[in-house]
């Protein structure tokens, strides 16, 4: 049951025929896991919190750096040096006290992901490197959780919802991570500050639709955003029956840390170096 304050707080939601009071109650009882409280994670967390998603789990072992603040809008200047999950929790508490924030001040690994992910209805990807992205995607398939994908670089971004057997998984489209060094990091190549806002809000929209079971999610469709020309391209993407995770004869049936170390994100390496 919604309280009087909640009826006012969420009144613009409740007015929507697609949502109503029942939909709002559904959001308040939903649990979303967010991997990363950085560029994409900031807008996702802010909007899901404001929307009244009842439980938000946030995994991030990183600390707020001055160079983050041009795009990571959940953190502010006084937060420099603090754990991102602590800073995010405080911001969310100010926006909406209805939200229970569960923080995981660690990096996601093959060892810890199962225990964390199984507590949630859905996972939103705000990570900054391929190794983690493949890990989150594979775990989402194995633990049967809808996976709201997003990634960005420079002035371009991508978003999709992966929920096989409905549509493909990330690996169906991108079977292997690119070789190390083939793709520059955001630190090397830069990223327009508003770009994660654009993509993160698309991810938050898709997460809410999935939780509510409304509309047509980005399943079987990969959205490609070119901010420089403001062009949105939609790619039709199909399941790969030979996919090593969600295909007919999967070879990835359990998660091992050594399988997600072949390439690491330059950004993460560089930041680790900086922290030393």
């Amino acid at each position, binding site marked *: 049951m919604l309280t009087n304050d909640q009826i006012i707080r969420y009144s613009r939601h409740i007015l929507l025929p697609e949502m109503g009071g029942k939909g709002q109650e559904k959001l308040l009882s939903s649990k979303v896991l967010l991997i990363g409280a950085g560029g994409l994670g900031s807008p996702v967390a802010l909007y899901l919190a404001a929307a009244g998603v009842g439980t938000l789990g946030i995994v991030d072992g990183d600390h707020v750096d001055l160079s983050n603040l041009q795009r990571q809008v959940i953190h502010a200047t006084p937060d420099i040096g603090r754990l991102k999950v602590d800073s995010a929790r405080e911001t969310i508490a100010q926006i909406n006290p209805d939200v229970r924030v569960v923080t995981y001040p660690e990096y996601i690994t093959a060892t810890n992901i199962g225990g964390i992910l199984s507590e949630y209805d859905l996972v939103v990807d705000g990570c900054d*490197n391929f190794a983690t992205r493949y890990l989150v995607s594979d775990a989402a398939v194995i633990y049967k959780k809808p996976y709201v994908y997003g*990634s960005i670089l*420079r002035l371009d971004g991508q978003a999709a919802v992966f929920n096989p057997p409905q549509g493909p998984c990330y690996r169906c489209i*991108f079977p292997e991570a*690119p070789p190390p060094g083939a793709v520059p990091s955001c630190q090397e190549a830069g990223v327009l500050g508003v770009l*994660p806002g654009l993509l993160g809000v698309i991810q938050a929209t898709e997460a809410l639709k999935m939780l509510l079971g409304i509309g047509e999610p980005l399943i079987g469709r990969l959205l490609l955003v*070119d901010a420089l020309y403001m062009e949105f391209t939609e790619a*039709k993407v199909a399941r790969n029956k030979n996919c090593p995770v969600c295909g007919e004869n999967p070879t990835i049936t359990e998660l091992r840390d050594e399988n997600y170390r072949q390439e690491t994100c330059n950004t993460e390496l560089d930041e680790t170096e900086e922290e030393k």
Partner: protein
Amino acid sequence: MQVTVKLFATLRTNRFKVKVLDYSSGTTILDVARDLDIPKEELALTLVNGISVEVDHEIRDGDTLSLFPPVGGG
């Protein structure tokens, strides 16, 4: 045969955004990439008429080919 080739993000550097190019029949996406001096590892996603296909896919007259590099930041 004529094919519209669209390049995205960093693939445009020193190349172009969109161009109509002439190829002989039997040309694959990988052949086009080779012609444009795009290394295979820079091709993360290849679309023909908006549908994701493998790089050995043969293109046809009138096709629109869209090539995307990997994007992994967040």
